[in-house]
């Protein structure tokens, strides 16, 4: 493993935070399962109660979370002198594609806009956004607009025809 790859692994500090999350999640799952209706009023035996497996899973998640906590604390003690960099998820880089995807799937689809139109707008806008910097540097924004509109139109027409007309699948 190269040093770069080592740096790319989440750090012990990140593992510590994850361990705390798993301890909380497992505990909450166990509590929800324990307090779940055991259907005793219907004569259901306790070992057939609906919360049995979720409760067991909660316990195991707590055990694994605790193991991760111990491991992370040991690793932290070892690396205290020279902690490795924690790779953060690059939310700034992902923000725009994520917003476009969520805007299309949660904001446009099924909200009264025709699917082909929504798909056309989304694909064209995403292609424009993702290629903007590269094309701007080459002074090709006009061409990019044409490409984006053409790809969007082609994709939306093809998907609509294939799903709706050829395979008789209802579109949102």
């Amino acid at each position, binding site marked *: 493993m190269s040093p770069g790859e080592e740096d790319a*692994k*989440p750090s012990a500090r*990140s593992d510590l935070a994850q361990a705390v999350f798993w301890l909380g999640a497992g505990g909450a799952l166990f509590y*929800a399962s324990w307090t*779940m*209706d055991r*259907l005793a009023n219907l004569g*259901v*035996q*306790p*070992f*057939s109660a*609906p*919360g*049995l*497996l*979720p409760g*067991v*899973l909660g316990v*195991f*998640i707590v055990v*694994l*979370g605790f*193991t*991760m906590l111990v*491991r992370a604390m040991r690793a932290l003690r070892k690396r205290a002198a020279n902690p490795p960099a924690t*790779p953060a*998820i*690059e939310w700034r*880089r*992902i923000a725009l*594609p*994520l917003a*476009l*995807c*969520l805007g*299309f*799937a*949660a904001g446009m*689809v*099924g909200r009264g806009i025709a*699917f082909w139109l929504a*798909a056309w707008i*989304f*694909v064209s806008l*995403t*292609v424009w956004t*993702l*290629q903007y910097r*590269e094309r701007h540097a080459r002074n090709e924004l006009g061409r990019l607009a044409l490409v984006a509109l053409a*790809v969007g139109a082609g*994709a939306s027409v093809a*998907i609509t025809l*294939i*799903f709706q007309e050829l*395979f008789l*699948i*209802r*579109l*949102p």
Partner: protein
Amino acid sequence: MEGLTALGRSIASFVSFWPLIYTLGATLLGILIGCMPGLSATLGIALMTTLTIKMAPNDAILILICVYVGAIYGGSRTAILLNIPGTAANAAACLDGYALAQKGQAGRAMGIATTGSVTGSLFGVVCLALFTPSLGEIALSFGAFEFFWLGVFGVMMTGSLTGNDPLKGWLMGFVGLFAAQIGQEGIHAFNRFTFGNNDLAGGISLIPALIGAFGFAEILTVLTAPTVKPVVNSVDSVMPRIGDVLRYWKTILRSGVIGVYVGILPGVGEDMAAWSSYAAAKRASKEPEQFGKGSIEGLIAAETGDNASIPGGIIPALALAIPGSAPAAVLMAAMIIHGVQPGPMLMVNQPQFVYDVVTMTLFATLAILFFGLFMVRPLLKIIMVPRSIIMPVIFVLCTVGSFSIASRLFDVWIMLAVGLCGFVLRKLNYPMAPFVLGLVLGDIVDKSLRRGLVLSDGSLAPFFTRPISAVIFAIVLFTVLMYVPSFNRIVTAGWARLWGRT
């Protein structure tokens, strides 16, 4: 003899115009999916499940199997030409395939990959035909206790063998098992973790969840990665050399056996099969120093192993309803959607279907041979399409695919939620395969545990004392304990002493 007759009947029923067109079209589509880094076989099968939902069951399953085989094979193209595995299964092929391409032997490497893939698949098809009925017969004697441990075994094995950290793998397996508990449970029809939401009462559908985990999460991953313009190496003749095949017949056979074996292990998948075959070939090779520098033997081992594991993964899916890999899990879900109930009763209720699947896999294998030899150059053009164009289109397909299974928007939100969580978890080194297997096996584990306890009147003893249960439990326990350093040291030392004496 009865099996051969059934196989003959299946082959005869598939040798007609439309099945052959479906085979060629779906395999080509699978290869294209495999060629595009970021699109996995799992996503391809999930999307095609939604597209083929209104087709006849045999036609739909044929298309899905062809996409599966095609995608795993297609991933070797980009591995050889760009040093980017098209699917995770082709990562091992990068090492020697790309080295050969840099020496100006990209065509030869692709010919070798085609030969390995075809022979691996054929070997797997033979095993599929031979072992599925036998395993199905054995599984008829399984009860709730055995199925509980088989489910747990699947989740624990996937957690151990996929990803770098078994702890995170097991956590993902348990999260998958938990996700399967959401909704109305199957014994008392009680709503669990639904918070009064009617959509949640129907549970988390597998296909939208998988599209989220392998589609949306992958799209976000690809779009955050720096853009690299692909440079395709020149391609010489792709016709495989008979000498290469004959010279490495032992490697092919060994990799085929390893591939099928790893494929049968629940949830482990094609990538592990490729790496295991590669490692075994390197250990047995007379030229281990050539591995990673353009070894024909290494490439043939990796490609034989991953393709042999495809039929291997289908064997437990058909016989036990426990899929051998993530794509096999989607395939199994598609079978259920189309009215086929995999599991021990399959050989009793629909024995012909097993031979139909054997025939479908055989046809898909012949199709990859055809496309591998005659369609290399046109296929290379797909690699050059920028990701910024492909990914938005794929996301539209993910949205349509999630919606079309049950025509409800809730499934689109499930896809988005699972995809977003999957993206974050992958960045934190959590593998997705155990989550998928947990989601698939959650129902069987839950029902088997509670049914077993009802049968034993609350006693846990049969879970540990019935012979098959005891064996599977011992394997699960041993697998987990091997990750405890002190236990691992004792076992390793004992093993070394044992080998030292003999």
